[in-house]
């Protein structure tokens, strides 16, 4: 039992390590003093400053748009790939696909960014498209690496599914596409939603790949934050960080609460 105690202690120490820096950020975002480390009384003025920064607000818009479209594309691509991985027979094509889909999970970002950027340059040289780098090139880049995460999340769910329901539909003469849409999709919806949100947050957060493949017209939020943070700590960024941390926490807690309620209801329904 001794070891168990040690691991529980480590769990709480680890949790403290994960959360204390974020709590400090939130706390200091309400600091009136411009000096980030000196407490100068409570104030919400940095939030006001934040909403006056037009460059930052534009970047937020760009990033949210990009994240939305990248997440949608990634869910489609990733689900198709996951379906191939879990339902198709072994073939050379499947092997190649499975090689390509998991690699972006661990590929250092500088390599992915550089290689995609060089591809876009070569393409515009040879085909005349894309004329300049911007939203579209970042969208392609983000969809590609987010699809890998979606594939992992969705394939985990596809694996657990009872395949006899799909097979029954097929045996009864439903076309494969119809079976997929009417039987499989409703059963994997939670993982599709999870994959979408994961992609959305990954796209919203990416700095390195976007810096390589973006152009003058498309400055994302992390790019703006990075150029400001490079110069040092600023209370305005603390305020922005607080908004991000609180939004993400709220969404995560809400989705956790909803799934738990649903599970409880399902349990109750089974008992009755």
């Amino acid at each position, binding site marked *: 039992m001794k*070891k168990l105690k040690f*691991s529980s202690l*480590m*769990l709480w120490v*680890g*949790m403290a*390590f*994960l959360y204390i*820096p*974020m709590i*400090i*950020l939130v706390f*200091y975002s309400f600091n009136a003093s411009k000096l980030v*480390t000196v407490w100068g009384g409570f104030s919400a003025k940095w939030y006001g400053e934040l909403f006056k920064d037009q460059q930052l607000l534009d970047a937020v818009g760009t990033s949210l748009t990009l994240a939305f479209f990248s997440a949608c594309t990634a869910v489609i*691509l990733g689900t*198709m790939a996951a*379906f*191939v*991985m*879990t339902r*198709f027979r072994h073939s050379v094509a*499947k092997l*190649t*696909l499975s090689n*390509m889909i*998991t*690699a*972006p999970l*661990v*590929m*250092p*970002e*500088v*390599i992915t960014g*550089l*290689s995609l950027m*060089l591809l876009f*340059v*070569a393409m515009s040289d040879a085909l005349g498209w894309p004329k300049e780098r911007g939203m579209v090139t970042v969208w392609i880049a983000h969809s590609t690496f987010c*699809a890998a995460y979606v*594939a992992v999340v969705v*394939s985990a769910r596809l*694996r657990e599914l009872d395949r006899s329901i799909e097979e029954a539909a097929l045996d009864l003469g439903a*076309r494969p596409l119809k079976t997929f849409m009417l039987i499989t999709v409703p059963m994997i919806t939670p993982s599709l939603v999870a994959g979408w949100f*994961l992609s959305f947050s990954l796209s*919203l*957060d990416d*700095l390195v790949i976007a*810096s390589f493949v973006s152009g003058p017209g498309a400055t994302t939020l*992390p790019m703006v*934050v*990075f150029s400001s*943070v490079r110069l040092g*700590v600023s209370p305005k*960024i603390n305020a922005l*960080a607080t908004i991000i*941390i609180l939004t993400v*926490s709220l969404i*995560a807690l809400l989705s*956790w609460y909803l799934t738990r309620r649903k599970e409880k209801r399902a349990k109750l329904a089974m008992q009755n």
Partner: protein
Amino acid sequence: MIKNMLFTLSRGSTWTLGIPYLWLLLFFAVPFIIVLKISFSTAAIAIPPYESIYQYADESFQLILNLGNYILLMEDSMYYEAYLSSLKMALFSTIGCLLIGFPMAYAIARAPKSAQGVLLLLVMLPSWTSFLIRVYAWMGILSNNGLLNNFLLWLGIIGEPMQMLNTNFAVYVGIIYTYLPFMILPLYSTLVKLDMSLLEAASDLGSRSINTFWRITMPLAKGGIIAGSMLVFIPVVGEFVIPELLGGPDTLMIGKVLWQEFFNNRDWPVASSLAMIMLALLIIPITLFHRYQSREMEKGL
């Protein structure tokens, strides 16, 4: 056999396989060929800033492979040291994440079923907020007039502020902090499947707990340890943001060098050859990770 293949590749299936296949081929595989190509070209003041490696004139096709970029990487010890120190930092931070993450994952896997979900959520939550913001948080904590220094001064442990920000120590803290959740998740998913009766059997047969841990728990958790370690090690080798924001002038990491070659020196060929060598160094860890991941993905078959 042929009939089987025709069956598996009906028209719908061809699309299902074909679309992600072509997308990844074009936007993931082909780019590497282009990086390889440009790593053999010569830098030039032009748009794009490199010379073509082949030309066709007077009915002769010429392929010019410039090995200069690779020779430069071998001759200039700065690059060599950057690779070495990146690998070293990635190794030590992976070990650090493993030492902190394993007990945490173990505690979560042994917690009551109802608590496991909340604990996992709490571990993963920080990684869904911004990566950049989480690195930034440490700038305020570690700086000379930052919270940690003030705290240590107040405790009387140190007499004057210690230089912590812009050192390798800060880079380690930043890496372990941001990558810890990626270590815990795969460890948890193998540890939660661990059959407790095996551990009970070992202890009933008189095995001491440390012995049981090394001979039963560890071998059974091997898959999770490999996956978690690769999820940390590989991206850290190419890490740019953390050494840039938390590291100092003596922090040499290859991701940072590549970034500078590309953005500051606009030397695309050298940046490409740096990427190719990084990829060559990482091919073994990537294969290891891939083997684990595809086994996980195909378990249902």
